[in-house]
């Protein structure tokens, strides 16, 4: 804006701009001084507000412009890296029997795109169109509406999963500004069990952020098949969506089958009790279920990767955990098995800065050695302690939650 434009504005408008640019001493200035100062700040590039791609022009209170700039840089870096997995020059020659050609770029090293290839898209989340972001949606939408591809046995719909990836990346980069450490501990090939602390109280954000952390930061963008309780199967709207984006139901058979197929399994063994933790118990990891994950991992001889997540337990600080409310819900939805409901005061999640730390994996025991019930519980307790100490460590390093 030129000096002329600025001086044609009212003082209120000038004040708004001054507030946006965080001009020091603006409240005591006269209009002329404001014009001078603003014209001055126009020239210095360091105060320019960086444009953001992720959330358009929306400013989010509590999120600094530097963070927006960093989010944008990280997003661009990811996009650049993922492009390498897809050969945009060659197109898939698949043709449906009704005569619809595929036309998506092929996965590097094969002659088919992710949708019509060998099914590895259920494990590796290569961008189908070669780019991430909403500009690829028309091409994805075409495949969605023509139903040209198969879903996997657990209901993963690669197109919907990719759309969800684009949407959730906004939360990941711009809102929660997730920082990831120790991604090298996640196995890049074959099965693995990621065990994390659970929180959220309203929505399982941690499941989404855990899978995005592996998709966005790992050398190969692998999907984490997070498993959830049967409540997901019962809720209208959620019942199919959670499967389409790549989660699965936490039946023992399912988990076993997922590991057998060499997928990464994401589990939150604290379960409902961890999810509904009141805020004063945040980051105190509870009992990790019955240690079933240890047995599963040992059966499939896959490593267990403990994951410490900071952030999930504060986005909706639960101020009370009510049994009466749960009773009320059961009155209307008798088939839901809810015992407690956590009540948070904020309908919008708080813009907490998340940290996810992947810890060194616990290797499976030798093939001839079987875990008995006690070994299982001990291993679960070890994992719990590892996660707890990592959480304590990360919390002591943290200066602010925001």
């Amino acid at each position, binding site marked *: 804006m030129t000096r002329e434009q600025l001086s044609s504005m009212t003082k209120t408008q000038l004040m708004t701009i001054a507030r946006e640019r965080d001009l020091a001493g603006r409240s005591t200035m006269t209009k002329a001084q404001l014009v001078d100062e603003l014209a001055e700040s126009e020239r210095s590039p360091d105060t320019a507000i960086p444009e953001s791609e992720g959330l358009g022009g929306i400013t989010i209170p509590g999120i600094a412009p530097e963070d927006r700039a960093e989010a944008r840089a990280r997003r661009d870096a990811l996009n650049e890296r993922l492009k390498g997995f897809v050969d945009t020059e060659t197109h898939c020659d698949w043709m449906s029997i009704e005569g619809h050609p595929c036309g998506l770029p092929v996965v590097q090293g094969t002659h088919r795109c992710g949708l019509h290839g060998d099914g590895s898209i259920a494990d590796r989340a290569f961008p189908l169109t070669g780019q991430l972001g909403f500009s690829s949606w028309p091409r994805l939408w075409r495949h969605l509406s023509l139903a040209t591809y*198969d*879903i996997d046995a657990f*209901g993963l719909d690669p197109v919907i999963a990719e759309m969800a990836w684009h949407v959730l990346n906004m939360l990941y980069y711009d809102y929660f500004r997730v920082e990831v450490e120790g991604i090298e501990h996640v196995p890049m090939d074959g099965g693995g069990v990621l065990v994390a602390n659970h929180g959220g109280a309203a929505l399982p954000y941690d499941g989404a952020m855990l899978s995005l952390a592996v998709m966005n930061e790992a050398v190969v963008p692998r999907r984490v098949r997070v498993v959830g309780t049967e409540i997901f199967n019962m809720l*209208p709207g959620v*019942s199919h969506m959670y*499967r389409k984006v790549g989660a699965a139901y936490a*039946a023992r*058979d*399912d988990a076993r*089958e997922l590991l057998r197929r060499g997928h990464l399994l994401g589990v939150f063994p604290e379960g409902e009790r961890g999810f509904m933790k009141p805020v004063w118990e945040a980051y105190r990891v509870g009992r990790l279920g019955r240690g079933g994950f240890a047995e599963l991992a040992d059966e499939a001889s896959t490593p267990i990767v403990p994951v410490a997540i900071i952030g999930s337990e504060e986005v909706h600080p639960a101020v009370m955990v009510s049994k009466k409310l749960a009773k009320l819900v059961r009155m209307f939805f008798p088939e839901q098995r809810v015992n407690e409901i956590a009540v948070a005061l904020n309908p919008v999640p708080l813009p907490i800065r998340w940290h996810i730390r992947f810890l060194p994996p616990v290797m499976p025991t030798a093939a001839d050695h079987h875990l008995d019930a006690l070994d299982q519980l001990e291993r679960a307790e070890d994992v719990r302690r590892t996660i707890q100490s990592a959480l304590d460590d990360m919390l002591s390093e943290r200066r602010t939650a925001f």
Partner: protein
Amino acid sequence: MRRVLITGAAGWTGGHLARRLEARPDLEVFGVDEIEPRVSFASDFRRLSLDRLTLARYVIDVQPHIVFHLQSVHPTSKHGRNTEAEERIIGSLALFGAIERLDTVEKVIVKSDTAIYGASPRNPSVLSETTRSQGTPSRFQRDLTEMERFIGRAAERDPDIAFSVLRFAPILGPQVNNPISRYLTLPSVPTLMGFDPRLQFIHEADAVAALEHTADHDVSGTFNIAAGGQIYLSRVLRLGRRIPQPLPGRLFDGALSGLARVNINVPRHLRGLLKHGRVTDTTAMTRSLGFEPTLSCRQTVLSAYGHRLGDAQ
């Protein structure tokens, strides 16, 4: 000359199976059912009621080598209201009794249904033959379970006879006329709001081929029979250019009973399927039974909606 007995020969699957088997010179086919055949075939057909002892007596007369028990459990919606279903169960019991008495029988092939797993939110996502179903069973499911229990007992008592139970996914195709095909080919299909079940189908030709394959091969046991892949109901409707009408629970029930008024029966046990879906594990089918369906689920759906499948993808 080996004799083949087909119960439920009046149905689509039974009729086509009889046609295929009678074309073979080494087989003599005997069909039995309660109603007149929908698909006409040349072999001997007897109209019998499949209850208690009539069927069993007939079986003893025929002295078959291979028995196809297709009409094992009554599939229509009238469950619970009449005793017909129960009569069928007792008919099966009598049939297995008769089979035990005969020493000609080498092979018994029973058509069951994947509905035996029920449809519950607590069911695992992929059901294998040994999975125990969760949740309250429907009448149809209980009848199937009971029938399979008879078979298990008969197989224990008579280890010389190869008993095979084929649990079929819903059979779909351009010609077959069953509740699920009638439902899916409605111009506008009522669906349950907020639920999008994962479904599996088997093509009508593949279903007949699976029965014939089991008779030709030396296998026994329980197998899930379904086409490769799985498909969401919303995709099925999209492939068929049908308009889904999402209705909340009560209205959905109302719509289904409204359809029953205009003679499109959607039985109660399908309601669970349309809510929670069902996907079975077919590795036993491909490995132990050695049967490979020619069409995938997606192709089956396309064929049911009248697409010509030339060079199938």
